[in-house]
């Protein structure tokens, strides 16, 4: 028989997988109320749940809408549990910090958001700069957040050129040796990534997670 704690964490995990942000919020509050370690709840319920969903997505058993809903639900839970973790003097041990964004001139959000969700689910701290992000904003983010990796998405041939410009701007700002840079998006290729001096390229969201793991080993 499951203990009350296990049962609650299972329910929390299930709610995250189902993308039920309201239920995740309710259960995360309950975790705190009954004194369960919030860090354990993040790791055993939220992260594990979304990771499992990520696997299903890769296998064609879950879909974009499920991934987006689960990531939103996880965020709702994290916002509550993180506060308690900090109160207890702890912190979530992320595997690395990633700043991600779709480059200037490009408003494609979905691919980038899925990569962000999968990275979060894989235990990385993700700062999502959104879409239509100019070089200056990436530079400011490097200074502000000190990330391990910058990820740039571009969904069009015209906007992939911005990936080169942004890398050049990061070099000009003398920040290139402080971060690894990865690129992706439909028109990009491994050769393109090499040509513009990126550290890596991923053809899809799942590969992006593998790439990040490899680069931060």
């Amino acid at each position: 028989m499951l203990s009350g704690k296990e049962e609650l964490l299972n329910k929390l995990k299930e709610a995250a997988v189902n993308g039920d942000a309201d239920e995740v919020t309710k259960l995360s509050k309950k975790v705190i109320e009954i004194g369960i370690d919030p860090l354990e709840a993040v790791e055993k319920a939220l992260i594990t749940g979304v990771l499992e969903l990520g696997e299903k997505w890769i296998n064609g058993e879950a879909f974009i809408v499920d991934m987006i809903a689960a990531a939103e639900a996880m965020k709702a839970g994290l916002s509550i549990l993180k506060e308690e973790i900090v109160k207890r003097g702890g912190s979530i041990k992320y595997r690395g910090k990633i700043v991600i964004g779709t480059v200037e001139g490009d408003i494609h959000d979905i691919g980038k958001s899925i990569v962000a969700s999968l990275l979060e689910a894989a235990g990385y701290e993700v700062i999502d700069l959104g879409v239509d992000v100019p070089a200056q904003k990436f530079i400011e983010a490097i200074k502000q957040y000190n990330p391990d990796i910058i990820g740039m998405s571009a969904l069009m041939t015209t906007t992939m050129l911005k990936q080169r410009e942004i890398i050049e701007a990061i070099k000009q700002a003398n920040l290139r040796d402080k971060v690894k840079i990865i690129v992706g998006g439909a028109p990009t290729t491994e050769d393109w990534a090499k040509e513009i001096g990126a550290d890596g390229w991923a053809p899809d969201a799942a590969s992006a997670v593998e790439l990040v793991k490899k680069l931060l080993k």
Partner: protein
Amino acid sequence: MFKFSREQKILDIAGVKIGGQPGQLPTVMIGSIFYHKHKIVIDEKTGEFNEKKAEELLMKEKEISEKTGNPRIVDVCCSWPQAFGKMIDFIARKVDGPFCIDGATAEVRIAGAKYVGEVGLSDRVIYNSITPHTREDEITAIRDAKIKSAILLTLNTRNPTITGRIQVMDELLAIAQKAGIENILVDVCVIDIPDPGPISKTIYLVKEKYGLPTGAGVHNAVVMWKKKRALTPENYMLAEGVANAIPIALGANFILYGPIEYAPTAYFSCALADAYVAYNARQEYGIKPLTNNHPLYRIFK
């Protein structure tokens, strides 16, 4: 099948009629030309392309359109601002009636809007597309060019569900009004492989609530599938046919069927779906096609 309880708008955009109750008008077919990596494009940046091959594709599509009775609207795609004028000029000369201008970025679309405004083609143009993210400068460009027709894309990146798509409709209508758009088409925005299901229901709900001509680019869903999992050519074509037919069964008025090269199979599947829907509408509701050119009277010959 069904008919909508709300009165359905029928638009006449430069001679092409679109909208209405199921069975009234043939599905309008929107195929893309000069899209990214289109073989007939020699230089995407300058807009240089093989005119002979482009003309052949347009002629072939015209023949198919005349055969099935499904009107066509060519979607002129472009990735570079400086290339758009050349492509628009060519299509305006070679095609009768309306055409879409479909730029890869806001800058390209703005360049296209300015161009059609300058050369007096605005009445024939359908702006593809206005989204909830459309910027102020783009809205101004559409208004200044006096473009009166546009496709509104129900893109909801935080909630790409049936509900999420419907949620952005009012926002889109407000943007369209600001841009001076009078003829509104709604594209319910396919983003994932199994989307032809929920987007078909979205089409139904948008038409029931707003009465506007509505459709989708279901081809995108099949292409995504093909990229992820190998499909045999036969299954790929069957998938395209099924994906085209389902939205039509739920009331779609237009289908963005993908590359213009796909016209033969896309027109066939849509015309057949149109015929089935129209035959039902006639039996069940006494709704008759508004044109003798309807696929119902052509495809079974």
